[in-house]
């Protein structure tokens, strides 16, 4: 059992103690099953929580990308009908910042997660986990972030270091004073 699964199982056991029905006395929720949760729980965290089994490389991903992504994002990720996916490194503080997977996205897990849950745009979730790992590897490789033969899987993906990993400043609950017009 993977760590997240194990944790979830322990939580489940704890929750079971002294509880036969869901929640508070006047609640109307019904208990959700493990299958219910697995179906809706698509989020993947930067530390890799909830990454699926499977693996893939950019070499394997090239053909899959060409088949399912090129039409909207261009063969080299240059952007055609939809967003550009490649390039723009070093432009964020320039006069024309270019935000792409390579230049802006802080976590490789987010790239994998977004592609897996939302792409191809017209048929989301239609590919296998293997294919999604491979396509993600291809997009990252095109951005010179990983090599063509680097194997991405639930262990290696969280370790991919994204160029703009440290490019974000927390603004909750307050905008930092240096960016606030009232300071």
């Amino acid at each position: 059992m993977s760590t997240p699964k194990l944790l979830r199982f322990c939580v489940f056991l704890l929750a079971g103690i002294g509880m036969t029905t869901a929640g508070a006395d006047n609640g109307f929720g019904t208990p959700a099953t493990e299958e219910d949760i697995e179906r809706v729980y698509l989020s993947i965290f930067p530390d890799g929580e909830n990454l699926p089994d499977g693996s893939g490389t950019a070499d394997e991903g090239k053909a899959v990308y060409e088949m399912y992504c090129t039409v909207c994002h261009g063969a080299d990720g240059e952007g055609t009908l939809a967003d550009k996916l490649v390039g723009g490194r070093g432009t964020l503080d320039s006069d024309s910042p270019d935000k792409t997977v390579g230049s802006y996205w802080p976590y490789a897990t987010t790239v994998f997660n977004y592609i897996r849950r939302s792409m191809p745009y017209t048929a989301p979730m239609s590919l296998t986990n293997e294919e999604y790992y491979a396509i993600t590897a291809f997009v990252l490789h095109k951005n010179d972030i990983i090599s063509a033969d680097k194997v991405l899987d639930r262990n290696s993906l969280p370790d991919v270091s994204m160029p703009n990993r440290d490019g974000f400043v927390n603004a909750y609950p307050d905008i930092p004073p240096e960016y606030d017009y009232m300071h």
Partner: protein
Amino acid sequence: MANDAQDLPRVAGNGLLDRRLFMRTLALGAVGTATAGVSLADPVSKGQPEWMLAPGATTEDYGTPSHYEMARTRRWTVPPAGQTATGRSIVAFTPHHQLHGTLTPNGLHFEVNHHGIPDIDPDQHELIIHGMVRQPIKFNVAALANYPTETHNYFLECSGNSGRLWADKPTPANLDITHGLLSGSEWTGVPLATLLDEAGLQPGAKWIIAEGADSGSVSRSVPMDKAMGDAMIALYQNGERLRPGQGYPMRLFNPGFEGNTSIKWVRSIRVTDRPAMTRFETRTYTDLMPDGKALQFSLGMDVKSVITRPSNSTVLPKKGVYEVTGIAWSGNGRITRVEVSADGGVTWADAALQGPVLPIMLTRFRIPWQWDGGPAVLQSRAYDEAGRIQPSRADLIAARGTHGNYHFNGIHSWGVGEDGGIAHVYA
């Protein structure tokens, strides 16, 4: 409209008049309409409008606006550049220059649907709460109908609203395009805290990850103080079930937060100790600053206002006294004051606020203005109860540069020409 207002009290430069003036002196006397002469030989109907001469239409099961209005009071829905991959529109902008209330009609509420509008069968839809809870639980629409509800008037604003006002040139676009990713509604639903309490939060629970049942399963991390605060699972908008474009049959609603966090078609709420760093809180809806860093989780919608009439969709036909009106709002709470300037911000006067002034809701303001036929620049500046003051565009840009994309809340300026024409200007 009075033409002879020379003696009216001025409260600021270039013709602004006391906000109480319309109530006091400008109530126009009823104008008698002369009836056309009807001779003995004529039917009495002579000269009457044709719609009075036969019984009108029958009632509709679901009422619609006048077909005359259907042709002119419309949302703006053309797909923005770069988002045309599917050839369909994913956005709809509220036409504030054509509206006068604070509650937006449901059919004119703005929408941003990154992955389209799902056609959800309400009998099959479930919301599942899971993660760091004592007991994962689920609710369908029927189960949620058993809970006590809350109703509040709230505005909803996309943080991309007014995005094009970061550009270095003023825009000929109307208020729909510049301010139409903003609407106001009466929202009714179940407090999210009630449902989270029922599931039972575990110690260390600090965030929820909300996910929608659309084809992109758009998802956002929301801090627990919001989730356990005023967030709700909204079921009704302006008294009727949510429209599909607003999340039918249920949506998360985070009052005062940027619109994208109020996940539509919500089906999953994962309770966690950290954010998921989803695409919509990293790549999108983060605000790039001049130093190349980006503000993340800039969730609150700051204080803002705009004059909706007159605007660049109208022309002043002649010199005289006009009502200047608009809307003000703040995610921080109530609007406490709106000032209007007719001389590009040199002098300001208080506008009247239409009550009740509600927290996190559009507030309409009004002030009379005597246009003497000369050039003028009309502006409004809002204040909120948290002490925030709407900044000039220059002050906003000095702090944040022009590449932030989101959260533009600068003062909006209408330039009035001697011909009565009105255009957006930077002043």
